[in-house]
Structure formats: structure tokens, C-alpha cells
């Protein structure tokens, strides 16, 4: 530094640099205040943004899981309502079939048989229900109904027991048809495999793979079917034989109802699982939101203080600049 003189421009240069720097600070502070977010998040995290990225990803995925969870909840509800309908129909047949098992009257047998047939048709219709354009009990081929119409189903059953001469033969033919690989599973059930497991939260996977081909459904329909064949025109049974058939039908109906209850409980468990997942999603979403906010959000109180300080600073530099510009020897000559 020279002892005799100090260049004019040096002062201007320094002051100008200061003013620019302070103006930059003001811009940054006001932008952060206005948007509520830090301008340079990476700098505040020192470049370590991997965790923030994973929070944001979790947040996006949780939203996806919530949609999936509500889908599965609807699906489970539809399945549960179909199974409940089948169960109700089956349970309603218990006392008529008991009456038929203790009677020898053709009229009773015919009435009970017609009752069973209408219940079977209703059960098939319940399984063929469609919700929002797809068939919940049809598995992956959700675009078309899983079973034929009730009438066709009954007709198919009548051809199965065609020409049977003893109640045992009727029951065993129906049993083979419902349980074998060439009967119900291939001839009547037109749906596909059960749906694959779906992720409904970060940790929960639900497999609503219930279809109309499940053993429980087959058992329940089987239970109704035997009773429905009490008045089948193509089997020749006398009254005692029909009574026996009714007794055996009662046993099958009982087993069928029990199976439907089991299936209902299974679906109920899954519904609970979905519920838990949905509330977990909700609370996790809040947690991640707060973690993200902690990293991204700018504290308005700190910013306001900073802005005050920078403004004061800037005003001081402005007044110094003004004063110094008035200090010239030429003014005093």
C-alpha cells in the first residue's frame, strides 16, 4: 500500500462488491421466505441427498400403496358379500331339508327340491356378480363371469346324475363331479387362477386369491346341489330312497355351510390385514412428510432475522457510499 496516494477506483470496487454480495443475500432470503423452501437444499445437507431421495420415494410409493389397498379392500368386500350370500342361502335350507329327511311325502320332497334349486341358482348368481366392470370371483380372467348362468348350471347337474338308481350313486356322482378334474373345475368354472399377491403397504402383501373354484365354494355349492336333485326327473327313486337322499343331502349341506363360514373367516382376516395396512400407510405418510419438511423447509423466523440484518447492512453500505462520494479535495478548492 502506497503511503502517499490511494487510487479512487479501489474504494468504489470494494463497495460495489459488498453491495452485490448483500443484494444477493437479500434475493436469496426473500425467495426462501416467499416459497417456504430452502433454495439450495443440497448445500444445507452438504451434498448428502440420498436419504432425502429415499424419503421422497417412500412418500410416492405409499400413495401408490394406498390406492392398491383401497382396491383390494373393495375386492375383498365384494368377495365377502358373495360368500355371505351363499352362506345365507345354505343356512336357510337347513330346516326344510331336515323336514324332508323325516318325511316320505312326495310333495315335501318336491317343495324342498324346488327351494334348493332356486337357492342354488341364487348362489351361482351371487358368485357371478360384477363390481365396477370386473368379476371378483373369476380370478385373473376378471373380464368374464366365472360360472354359467344358474339354469345352465342346474341343467349340467341334472345330466351328471342322469340315470342314477340309488341315493348313494347320486351323491357319489355329484361328489366326483365337484371334486374331480373333469367336472366343475373344467366344465363349469370358466375363470382363471387366483390373483397374485399385491403390495398394499411398505411391509404388507395381501393375496386375495379367492375364486369360484376354491374348495370351500365347491363344497358349499355341492351342499346345495344334492338337495336340488331331490326331484330330478331322470333318476328313479322311491320314497324311502328319497328320504335317504334327503338325509345325505343334509350332511352335505352342513359340510358346505361350514366350508362357507371358513372361507368367510379367511376373507375377513385379509380384510383386517388391509385395514391395518391402510392405517399404517396413513401414519407413515405423516412421518415421511415431517422428515421431508425438516430437510426442505426454510425456517421463516431465522429468515426474517437474517433479512433484517442484511437490510440494515445494505442500508449502511449505501449511506457510506453516498458520504464517501462527497469527500473530494476538489470540492474544497
Amino acid at each position, binding site marked *: 500500500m502506497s503511503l502517499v496516494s490511494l487510487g479512487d477506483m479501489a474504494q468504489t470496487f470494494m463497495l460495489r462488491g459488498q453491495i452485490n454480495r448483500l443484494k444477493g443475500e437479500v434475493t436469496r432470503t426473500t425467495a426462501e421466505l416467499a416459497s417456504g423452501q430452502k433454495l439450495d437444499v443440497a448445500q444445507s445437507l452438504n451434498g448428502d441427498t*440420498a436419504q432425502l431421495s429415499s424419503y*421422497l420415494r417412500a412418500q410416492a410409493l405409499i400413495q*401408490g400403496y394406498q390406492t392398491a389397498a383401497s382396491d*383390494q379392500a373393495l375386492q375383498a368386500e365384494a368377495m365377502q358379500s358373495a360368500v355371505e350370500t351363499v352362506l345365507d342361502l345354505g343356512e336357510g335350507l337347513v330346516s326344510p331339508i331336515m323336514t324332508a329327511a323325516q318325511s316320505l311325502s312326495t310333495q315335501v320332497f318336491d317343495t324342498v327340491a324346488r327351494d334348493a334349486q332356486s337357492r342354488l341358482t341364487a348362489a351361482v348368481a351371487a358368485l357371478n356378480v360384477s363390481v365396477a366392470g370386473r368379476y371378483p370371483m373369476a380370478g*385373473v380372467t376378471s373380464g368374464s363371469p366365472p360360472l354359467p348362468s344358474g339354469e345352465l348350471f342346474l341343467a349340467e347337474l341334472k345330466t351328471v346324475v342322469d340315470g342314477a338308481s340309488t341315493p348313494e350313486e347320486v351323491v357319489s356322482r355329484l361328489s366326483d363331479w365337484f371334486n374331480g378334474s373333469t367336472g366343475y373345475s373344467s366344465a363349469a368354472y370358466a375363470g382363471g387362477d387366483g390373483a*397374485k399377491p*399385491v403390495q398394499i403397504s411398505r411391509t404388507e402383501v395381501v393375496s386375495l386369491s379367492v375364486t369360484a373354484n376354491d374348495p370351500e365354494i365347491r363344497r358349499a355349492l355341492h351342499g346345495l346341489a344334492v338337495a336340488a336333485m331331490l326331484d330330478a326327473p331322470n333318476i328313479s327313486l322311491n320314497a324311502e330312497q328319497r328320504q335317504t337322499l334327503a338325509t345325505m343331502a343334509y350332511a352335505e349341506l352342513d359340510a358346505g355351510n361350514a366350508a362357507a363360514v371358513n372361507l368367510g373367516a379367511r376373507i375377513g382376516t385379509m380384510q383386517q390385514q388391509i385395514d391395518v395396512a391402510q392405517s399404517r400407510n396413513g401414519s407413515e405418510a405423516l412421518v415421511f412428510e415431517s422428515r*421431508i419438511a425438516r430437510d426442505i423447509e426454510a425456517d421463516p423466523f431465522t429468515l426474517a432475522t437474517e433479512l433484517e440484518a442484511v437490510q440494515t447492512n445494505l442500508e449502511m453500505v449505501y449511506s457510506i457510499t453516498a458520504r464517501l462520494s462527497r469527500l473530494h479535495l476538489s470540492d474544497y478548492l
Partner: protein
Amino acid sequence: MTIGSALASALSGLTVSARLAEIASNNIANALNDGFAKKQAVVTARMLGDQGAGARVQGVTRSVDELILGDLRLATAAHHFHQSETTFLQGIDTVFGTAEDEGAISNRIAGFEAALTRAQSRPDSDPRLQSVVDAAKWVASGLNDVSKEIQTSRQAAETRISGLVSQLNSDLQRIGELNAKITRISTSGRDSSAIEDQRQQVIDRLASVVPLREEKRPNGAIALFSSGGLVLLDGRAAEFGFTPNAHVMPDETIGSGLSALTFNGQEITLNAQGGRLGVGELTAQFDLRDRLAPQAQAHLDGLARDLVERLQDPAVDPTLGGAAGLFTDAGTAFAAANETGLSGRIAVNAAVSPEAGGALWRLRAGIGAASPGDPGDATILLAMGAKVARSLSPASAALSGQSGSVAELASGLSAGFSVSRLGAERAQSFAATRHETLKAEHLENGVDTDEEMQTLLLIEQAYAANARVIQAADAMMQSILEI
């Protein structure tokens, strides 16, 4: 002493005062001129034999602190170096996106994963399949954009290098010419300080391109050396050569498509730590073109490759039969040899895009499927989601040693870009501060109008005194003549 010699001395005093006033007014006029060195006159006694006979201006010196000027030039070069690198890294960081940006690559990938989750739950729903395709296109276009930014910067560096080299050559020639002029003027005894000002300005302009050192040579000439030791100008100006490439491709490097810098016909290698040409803007642009941009491109291509390969896996989609999966290399299947530039070519397979003649059910049934298949079958969608989320080691050499899901690899890349950018910004702010400080010190040696005002006061007095002496001598001569 005779009266005549008194008169002569007074006249010389007037001349000196006039000359000093001229210098002072020149200084004041150039008070706002950045590249102007304050002039000071050297006044000595005029001798006639052994006797003093007045004063004369022996010469004009330029008030320049050589040390500070030298440091300032090096600081300017460093400042421009860091400025160039920071601008590039900021550009990449912005386009790739930092974690909180909605359009950041890592968030686009998360969006794609979320869309897949929704489609897995309702594989029969066309809107959900469409949103998967849209999310995939959003990812691909993001990668395309970053690749384009890198390529544009690289091309800009190539163009800038060409401009800088021709500026370097022409400036060195000019300095050589000014050297010759100054030598001619000073050996003939005249004042060369104005030309020296011009020369200083040209050298200062050059200093941002190449960090240089100035050495004095006899008769006012100077020699220039780069901070790495190259002789830029010593009597003769050096010649730099460079052949620009009008369209730089991602896979072109020095020697295979791109030209290196030649110094007097010889190729020289530059490196960002210093090397022969030091740390200035020219080195920065070469570093950008040959190291930073290709590195960024390689990382990006590695990420793109990982994404393409994960979904080109027959275990995920058995219907592929060797053809491209959901993401393609400009429409065809990806082959490992074509990794460079993949991020600029990655696109969503037209087979799943209805507006490109494809069908949405291919997302569910498989790219190579002939028919829509079971509407509720989420097998392939589930396999895609699982593969994208699985922690794997990418096949690309650029990402070796890393492993994670695609989203994790992308966020690792983003963090890497952020860290590079922050490092560059820190280095740049340090260089800027140093440059500012040295510049302020340099400017302190500039014109001080207060000092010039004071000098003018003295000059006025001296001029008045000399004029008074002439008056007195004239009066004396008159009185003698009146005898």
C-alpha cells in the same frame, strides 16, 4: 549566472510545469480507466557542462506494482478456471435435479414405481396402464434432457476452445508488435508509456485464458511465460493450433474425432491440476470437454443401461424373445457395446404406446404377446416392479462398486453431482475472493484524484513563481537598456 541564463532556467521551469500539468490532467482524465497505470514524471536538473541550468522532465514512469499485478493475473486465470467448471457442474446438477425437485430423475423413477404399484392392483384398468406408460416416458425424457445438456455443454466447450485459441494467437502477435514499437520509441528517447498501457491491457485480457508471468527484456520489451513454463512470447510469439469439430458425438475423445491443442506444432496435454498451460479458462474448457462431460455422460449412460437391462430380462417378461423390453435403445434392443450415449437414445417401447401403434395390454401381457391375455393377471407387472426395486450391482463400468435399486442408483448419482457442484462452488468462491482482494490492491495504485489536485496546486504555484522570475529578469534587462 547571467540574466539570460536566469531567463532560460525560468523558461525551462515553465516547460516542466506545463509538462507536469499535462501529465496530471492525463491522469485525472483516466481516473476511471481500469487498465491505466498512473504516470509520474521524473524531473531532473538540466546541466550545461558542469553547471545546472534549469530543470527538465527526464522521463515518465508508470506506477505499477509488478508483484501485485503478477499475482492478480494468476488469480484472474484461476477465477476463470473455476467459473467455467462451476457453471458446467451447476448446469448438470440443475437438469438432473436435486432430491427435492419434482422433475428430478430420482423422483421420476419413484413416480414410475408408484404407477406400477397402482397397475399391479388393477391390471385390467387401461387408465392405470396408461399412467405407467406415461411415467416411463417421463423417466426416459428426463434422461434424454440431461444427456442433451451434457452434449450441448461439450459442444459449447469445443467452440469456446476454438475462439480462445484464435484469441490467444492474435493477442500474442499484437503484444509482439507492441514490444517492437516500444523498443523503437524508447531507444529514440521518447515517451512510450501510452503504448505500454496498451500492452498491459492486452496482457491482462490474455491472463484470464492462460495464467502467465511477465519478464522484462532490454529496451522496454517483455517476455511472457505460462505458469507451467511454456514460452508464450520471447522475441517471437508462439503459435497454438486447434481443429474444432463441428458436431461432437458422445463417443468421440481426444485422438478419435477430437483435436488436441498443439503448441508450435507439438501436441501438449493439459490437466486440471496445472500442467504446461497452468490453470486458466483454456485448461478449464479442455477439462470440461475431455474429463468432466464424458464422466458425467458415462455415469448417466450407466444408469440408463441398468434401467434398460432390468426390464429387458426374459425372467421379467418371457414374451420378449431377445427383442427390446419396456425401455429401448432408440426403438431396438440394447446391446452392451452401445452403452455410450444410451441416455440420449433411451425411449419407451412403441409396442405399449397406443399413439405409436401399440397397445396398453402389452404392458400386462408382455411386449411380445399376441393377445391381451387374462385382464387380472399382474404377473409381469409384479415382476417389473420387483426387478426395479431390487438391489443389484449395475453392469456398467462407470457405476462399478455401487449397488441398489434403480431409484437408489439415481439418487446416488444426484448426490454425486451435488457434491461436485458444491466443491466447485467452494473453490470458485475462494478464487473469486482472492481475485477481488488482489484487484482492490492493484486499484489502490491507480489514479488518486485528490493527489492530482494537490499536485496541481503545487504546479500552479511553481508556474506562477517561474513567471514571476521571468518578469523580474525582464524588468532588470529593461532597466539596463534604459541607461
